[in-house]
């Protein structure tokens, strides 16, 4: 067992040195470090707070969706957030998407169906840039996974707008936001108290809305998170039992050899 201890010590110290070293250095980075929030989906038992995700969907639909697309999100995915099929159909029907060409080949439009992707606000990137002062609002499907410490970063960014320090010059059409790389962001502050009228009666403070929309976007980025956490638990329990059985078998099989018995007869 001495060698097991050695392996553990060696690996732990290498990882420790590496992490200690890097975090000590990255702490000196230029942009403000995101706030540390608590999230329902964190940790091995984490799962999505369904009410928060539903509110987040409402925030996305009524605020974010006017500029940001969500190209990997289908209306059918709303089932995972606890909506019934009829409600999903109703949500989808509020939007129009391109249909099949008609008999004479003209383009048609039809009401969206559950299998459709949530319609993008702009026809293409150029149209999006033209409407946003030259800046391209990124697709939000994977935004939580595409940023370091995604949930905390997004929450901090959305709620982090403040007046620029006096010595700071802000270019035209930009806002000061200490959490954004470089401190200047093209997106205007998106959330103000009461901008959304929550269906479940929750008070729509900007902190509440930010938290809800980040929960929703985390679901969109990682829709299988809950399945993953559940399966992980079973897999780890299974492996744990298996490993203990292997260990006990090993002890039993090795007992004689450990006490000095020879397996092969000597020449």
């Amino acid at each position, binding site marked *: 067992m*001495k*060698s097991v201890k050695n392996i553990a010590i060696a690996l732990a110290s290498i990882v420790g040195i590496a992490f200690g070293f890097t975090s000590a250095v990255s702490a000196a980075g230029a942009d403000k470090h995101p706030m540390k929030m608590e999230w329902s989906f964190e940790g091995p038992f984490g799962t999505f707070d369904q009410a928060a995700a539903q509110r987040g969907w409402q925030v996305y639909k009524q605020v974010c969706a006017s500029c940001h697309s969500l190209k990997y999100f289908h209306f059918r995915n709303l089932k995972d957030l606890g909506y019934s099929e009829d409600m999903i159909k109703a949500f989808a029907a509020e939007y129009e998407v391109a249909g099949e060409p008609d008999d004479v080949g003209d383009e048609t439009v039809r009401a969206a169906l559950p299998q459709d992707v949530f319609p993008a606000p702009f026809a293409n990137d150029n149209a999006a840039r033209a409407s946003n002062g030259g800046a391209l609002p990124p697709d939000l499907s994977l935004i939580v996974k595409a940023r370091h410490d995604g949930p905390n970063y997004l929450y901090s960014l959305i709620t982090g707008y403040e007046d620029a320090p006096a010595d700071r010059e802000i270019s035209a059409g930009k806002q000061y936001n200490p959490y954004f790389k470089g401190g200047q962001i093209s997106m205007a502050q998106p959330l103000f108290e009461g901008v959304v009228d929550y269906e479940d009666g929750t008070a729509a403070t900007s902190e509440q809305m930010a938290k809800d929309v980040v929960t929703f976007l985390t679901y969109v980025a990682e829709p299988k998170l809950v399945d993953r956490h559940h399966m*992980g638990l079973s897999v780890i329990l299974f492996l744990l039992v298996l490993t203990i059985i292997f260990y006990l078998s090993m002890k039993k*099989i090795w007992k004689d050899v450990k006490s000095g018995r020879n397996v092969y007869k000597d020449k």
Partner: protein
Amino acid sequence: MAEWEAIKPKNKALGWFEERLPVLALVHNVVGPGTPTPRNLNYWWNFGSLAGLMLVVQIISGIVLAMHYTPDTALAFDSVERIMRDVNYGWLIRYMHANGASFFFIAVYIHILRGLYYGSYKAPREVLWMLGLVIFLLMMATAFMGYVLPWGQMSFWGATVITNLFSAIPVVGDSIVTLLWGGFSVDNPTLKRFFSLHFLLPFVIFGVVILHIWAKKVSDSGNPLGIDVKSNADQIPFHPYYTIKDAFGAGVFFLIFAYFLFYMPNAMGHPDNYIPAEPLVTPDSIVPEWYFLPFYAILRSITFDIGIPFTDVIFVPAKLLGVIAMFASILLLFFLPWLDTSKVRSAQFRPTYRYFFWFLVIDMVVLTIVGGKKPEGIWPILGLVGTAYYFAHFLIIMPLLGKIEKTLPLPESIAQAVTAKAAK
């Protein structure tokens, strides 16, 4: 090499088959009861079988991914997201493959370091060691091309940076790069050939693994004492002793692997790779996967040309020198059996080498950290010192130390050492 025992199964049909193709004898003599193995192997010897298991995990998960993946710049990123969202258990397979690569490298790095510590590369195991290095090089090529396939920002820019290295080669460099790309930039032909080669190379690795195991069979396993097997008392059969020990080790290793896979699947990846490749937008910093960082640090540490001082004459430009240093850092290991002049294999009996071994490990950790940093502030100089020490370890310390080090007395035999330990 232990004698090759024939197997005579009681079952007539099996016996008929075995006479014509002795597969049972193959298992029996390579990992079975007919494989005498030193009785004192410690847990560091587990990592060979772990690396083998990870290769199998990677090949199986990879084949399933290839059924759903589309190697086309317009579709690759979407097809990966489709795997993550709509393919049944696609998220499981993809996270297994992505984290499996990291755990494959973890197992292989520990396996290599074990070899360095216990002198596993010394006679008569030089070819065994070199075959291992060939596997390592093939793994690096495979992993690099695999990382390009999701066609995220890091995929694209990593591919651009690494393939561009070859342009440093005099005269033919640019032609080689054009050949690698299949055009004049990293684009659709690049992605398609990388996919094809990423599918092919694991099977080449599998073939070299067979040679690696064959060479092990011929020269027999080394052991922590580094002394040769002298009598039957020094050995025990591979099965059941080391099969069960490997099984236990695999259980522990897969527990850690499962924790990453299910609870922090993106911890070892870069967030930028969830942004689709955009040839017009360069990421903040381009960093390879963690397992390439020490070599990336060596590559970037060279920022000076070699020429005649105080003139404009340059013999070797900095870029070429960096590329040479990076490749040399691995190719050097092929010569290790002769660079190490010590007669004693195991560091257990080499009190000074033992320190230098750990200095080398620390040096590799430092280079790993440097490789992940932007080259500014103290990092470039730290990288240069780390690189210099890396080469000094193999080219100066190893040859000299073997000559001047006073080694400790070796035990008479493995059996004697084991009984002495058991008596304590």
